[in-house]
């Protein structure tokens, strides 16, 4: 799980540093002011909060999230290595996101992948 938490840490730091760049993309409006349950299948769960200029996470689960993203640990690792996003994991039918939550979840996945590439 250390790799996942390092990935989330990197995402939060990179987002704080680059939120202005992210705000220039179509994804920003879909992810700002949102909370997400990020679950590692069969293991831990994290609540990620994305604010306009910052992001932070903590272990746990919330009932007030915009989307829940649950994937195998290996798929999370590939996102944090910059090799995948939620759409490509969903294309392999290994991630199910409720229709109402698809836009915000997929937008978050794309931003996560791109920021991971900046490691």
């Amino acid at each position, binding site marked *: 799980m250390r790799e996942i938490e390092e990935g989330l840490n990197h995402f939060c730091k990179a987002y704080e540093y680059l939120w202005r760049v992210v705000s220039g993309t*179509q994804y920003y409006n879909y992810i700002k002011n949102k909370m997400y349950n990020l679950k590692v299948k069969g293991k831990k769960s994290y609540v990620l909060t994305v604010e306009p200029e910052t992001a932070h996470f903590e272990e746990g689960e919330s009932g007030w999230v915009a989307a829940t993203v649950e994937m195998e640990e290996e798929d999370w690792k590939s996102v944090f290595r910059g090799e995948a996003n939620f759409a490509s994991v969903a294309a392999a039918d*290994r991630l199910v996101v409720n229709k109402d939550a698809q836009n915000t979840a997929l937008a978050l996945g794309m931003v996560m992948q791109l920021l991971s590439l900046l490691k």
Partner: protein
Amino acid sequence: MREGITRKVAEWAYNLKYEHIPKEVVACVKNQLVNMIATIYAGSIMEPGQRIIKAVKNWGDKPESTVISGGYKTSMRNAAMVNSYLACILEFEDYLPESHVGDVGVPTALAVGESYGSSGKEIITALVIGNEVGGRTGEVLVDPVHVGHASPNHAIDVPLVAGKLMGLDVEQLMDAMGIACTHVQGNTMINWAADCKGMLTGIPALVGVTSASLAQAGLSGSHEILEHSLGYCNMASNIPDLSRLEIITRDLGVEWRTLKLVNKPFPVVAYYNAPIDAILKIVNRNKVEPENVKEISIRCPFIMMLTAGFYSLRYPDFYERIKNRRDWTYQALLIDGYYPMAISLVDREYTPRQLKLEKILDPKVHGVIKKIKLKGDPAIGSSAEVTITMKDGTSYTQFSKYDQFFYPEEGFDVKKKLYDMASGVKSREEIEEIISMIEKLEKVDDINELTKLLA
């Protein structure tokens, strides 16, 4: 302000005349036509293209409009559908920054124009309407799940292209949009790997032409279909702020989206244009044998990483699926990107000819795929830098500079593309005649003069 957007778009489309269109925009439309006809010919020789051509022929519809390369006519709505399908199945068409446009606009204009005996000037005008409206709606309907070919925006532009050529008035153009927008045209991403991916544009073409015909017959559709909170845009896309709808009519007839049109040089998602261009330059200028390559290092557009390996990195049996399953086809490769880059190195060209099954399964190509190392670089923009390192230590580096809309630095010759893609179907003289007619399209009295050459 989103009030009255449906009416404003319809009024603009109704009032636009050829004489209002700047010469440089007309020149872009002519290039678009040559490029799209080349793309349709390319699609017509692919297996799924052959299947749809045969299927629609067997329907025996009223012969109104030409199926390009099909050797027959069918109803104008089915001709629009088939030609649009053919235009879409190779990711070889054109695009504006947020929307493909030619693969619905050109088939629609040719099919309806042929049936109505439209002039060349009328065809150009209709195509400009499609580009201007399609380009703008693409900027508004920007869900992360609805991008590129998956954008649901053609329910808006196709009825206008068709309706303009049918001579609909403002009220009827609004009806046509309303009818076409009855159902939200969302898409199912898993279908992008199957033959039916071409229906991403084929269905909007069919529905749009049908809707314009029904509007002509007096059926009504909502005249607030675009701007109403329960209208098409807000139902089709999760638009953060509906005031953004104003983009659809902003500077219509003043700023021309058509000028930003990009004609694709390779059959692949556009992100891969620059890396493929760089690979081809290296292998065509140097002695690069695939078996002697140690590594292919590609510094590529940052955004390309969102689709690179989209399927192949997730499915361990990706190529087995293409070999064994009818619902997994070469189309998945055009999004995934690794195969097009690898086969470019092996074959020293990348065209639809490289999408045959025996090539897709060639172990030599798969050996090259394993040697590709991608590094998304936010500083490189749309360009790419490829370094091929040989086992003996020799290395070759090529930087391919593409601007923000991915134009190759040295430009791209759409006529060459038509000669290449139509060569199996048409003689050189026939292709010359097609190009010559498009070059003087504004002087053509009846588009049937062109469409009879395309059959």
